[in-house]
C-alpha cells in the first residue's frame, strides 16, 4: 500500500517535471520552427525553407545590432570580471571603514527592479552630458554585472586557505607573483562562473539597455523590441536559432565551467 502510493507520487513528480520543461521550451521550439517557414508571417507554417538564414545577412540593421550586442557583452564581461575579482579579494581580506556601505551597494542591483537602475543611470549620464551609445551601454552592463562576479568569486574565496599565500610569500614570491601563480588559479572556477554569469546577463538584458542605449548603438534585444510589436520577420528567428546553437556549443565546450557554476552556486549552498 505504502509502496504504490510512493510510486504514484514519483510518477506524478516525473510527469510534472516533464510538463514544466515543456513549458520552458515550447516558445523556443516555436521560434526555431518558424525560422524554417516559407511565409513571411509567423502565423501558419506554409513550407520548409532555409531562405531566412541567407536573408539574415542582408538585414544590415539586424547584423549591426548583433555586432553591438557582442561588443557590449564582451567588454562588459571583461571589465566586470577584472574589477569584480580583485574587488572580491579585497572585500574578503580587508576590513575597512565603510565596508557596510559597499556591501549594501552591492546588493542593490540584485534586489532592486532593473528599471530603477536603468533610469538612475540614464539620469546620471544625462547630468554628466555623456551621449548615449556603446560606452554608456558598457558602463551600465558593468554596473549590474559587478555584484554577481563579486558574489561568485567570494563564494570561492570562502573555502580558500590563506596560509598557501603566506607560504608563497615566505618563499620569496612578491605579491603580484603570488596573486597570479597561487591565488588566481585557486579561485579560477569562481572567476569563470562569474564571467559566464556576467555574459549571460549582458546578452539577455532588455530593461537597462532600453534606457542607456542611443539611436546609433542599438543592440539585438532593442532591435527585437522595436520589431516585436508589429511583427518579427523570420530572419530574426533564424538569427536567434543560430545564437542558441552558438551558446549551447560554447556551453558544451566550457561544460566544466558551467557545471562548476552549478555546483558552486546551487549545490554548494547546502554546505553553508
Amino acid at each position, binding site marked *: 500500500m505504502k509502496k504504490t502510493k510512493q510510486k504514484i507520487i514519483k510518477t506524478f513528480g516525473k510527469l510534472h517535471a516533464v510538463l*514544466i520543461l515543456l513549458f520552458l521550451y515550447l516558445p523556443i521550439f516555436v521560434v526555431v520552427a518558424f525560422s524554417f517557414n516559407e511565409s513571411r508571417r509567423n502565423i501558419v507554417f506554409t513550407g520548409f525553407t532555409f531562405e531566412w538564414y541567407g536573408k539574415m545577412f542582408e538585414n544590415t540593421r539586424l547584423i549591426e545590432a548583433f555586432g553591438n550586442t557582442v561588443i557590449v557583452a564582451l567588454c562588459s564581461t571583461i571589465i566586470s570580471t577584472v574589477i569584480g575579482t580583485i574587488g572580491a579579494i579585497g572585500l574578503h581580506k580587508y576590513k575597512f571603514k565603510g565596508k557596510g556601505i559597499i556591501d549594501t551597494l552591492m546588493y542593490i542591483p540584485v534586489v532592486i527592479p532593473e528599471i530603477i*537602475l536603468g533610469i538612475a543611470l540614464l539620469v546620471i549620464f544625462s547630468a554628466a552630458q555623456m551621449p548615449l551609445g556603446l560606452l554608456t551601454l558598457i558602463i551600465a552592463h558593468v554596473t549590474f554585472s559587478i555584484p554577481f562576479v563579486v558574489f561568485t568569486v567570494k563564494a570561492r574565496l570562502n573555502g580558500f586557505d590563506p596560509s598557501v599565500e603566506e607560504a608563497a610569500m615566505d618563499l620569496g614570491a612578491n605579491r603580484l607573483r603570488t596573486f597570479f601563480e597561487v591565488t588566481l588559479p585557486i579561485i579560477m572556477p569562481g572567476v569563470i562562473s562569474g564571467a559566464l554569469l556576467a555574459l549571460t546577463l549582458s546578452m539577455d538584458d532588455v530593461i537597462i539597455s532600453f534606457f542607456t542605449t542611443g539611436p546609433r548603438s542599438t543592440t539585438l534585444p532593442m532591435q527585437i523590441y522595436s520589431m516585436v510589436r508589429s511583427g518579427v520577420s523570420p530572419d530574426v528567428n533564424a538569427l536567434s536559432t543560430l545564437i542558441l546553437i552558438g551558446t549551447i556549443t560554447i556551453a558544451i565546450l566550457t561544460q566544466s565551467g558551467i557545471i562548476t557554476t552549478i555546483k558552486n552556486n546551487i549545490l554548494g549552498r547546502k554546505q553553508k
Partner: protein
Amino acid sequence: MKAKKRFKGLPKIVTLAPVSIWLLLLIAIPLIYILVISFLGRNSNGSIRYSFALENYQKLINAQYLKIYAQSLLIAFFTTIISILLSYPFAYHMAGGSKTKKVIMMLLVIVPFWTNSLIRLYGWKTILGSEGILNGLLMKTHLIQQPLQLLFTMPAVILGMVYTLIPFMILPLYASVEKLDHSLLEAASDLGAKRYHAFLQITLPLTLPGIFAGSIMVFIPALGYFFVSDLLGGGNNMLIGNLIKNQFNISQNWPLGAALSIVLIAVTILLVKLYTKVGGNIDDLGVA
C-alpha cells in the same frame, strides 16, 4: 623589508578602490540623484526646474494611477503564487534525483536564458494570437468556433511573467529542498505520521526560506518588467514599470518618473525588510 612596509597599504587600495569607486559613482550617486529629482519641478518645455516641489508626489495619487498600482500588484501576486505552485513539485523531484540528473535538470532550467527573453515571449505571442497556434488547434478540433481572445489579457501577462521569472523560483526552492534532512521525514514516517502531515509539519516549514527567497526574486521584478506587459498585455495591463518607463520615454516628465521610482524603491525595501524579518538570508537572493 623597507619596500614591503612602503607598499603595505597598496594592495588594500588596489583591490578595493575600483569596485568601491564604481559602485559609489554608478549606483549610490545616481540613486541619490533620482531622489533629488523627485522633489524638483518641471518647466513648460519639459526640462527640470531646480526648485523644491512636492507636486510629483501629489500627482501619484489619482484614480488612473491607483488602478495601475493595484493591477501591477495583482499581477505580481498571481505570478508569485503560480510560480511557487509550479516550482515546488519540480524542485522536489529534482532534489530526489541522482547527481547527474540534478546537473542536467539544472542545465535545462538555465538554457532557455540563453535565448533572449523577448524572443521567447514573441514565441508565446505566436502561440496565443487570435490566428495563433493554440487557437488554430482548438478550431481544427472543433472545440471552439470563434478564436478566443487569449492575447492582450491579464492572464497572458501573468503567463509571460511566470514564464520569464520561474527559474528564479526553482533555483532557491531547489537549494532549500536539497538541504532538507531526509532522516527527519523517515523518523516521522516511522512514528506513524501520515505523508501530508509530515509534509505540512516538517518539509514545508523547513523549505520556507526557499519559498521566501524565491518569492522576493519573482515578486519584485514582476512590478517592473514592462516589456512583458508591452508584448502580451497590449497596453491594457500596465505595470508600475510601464508607468515609470512612459515618464522617461514618452511624456519626458523625469521628476514624476523619479517620484514613481522612489515609491517602487520603497516597496522593494519594505519587502526585503519583511523578508529578513521572517528570517530570510539576504545571501540567498540573486545569484542564480
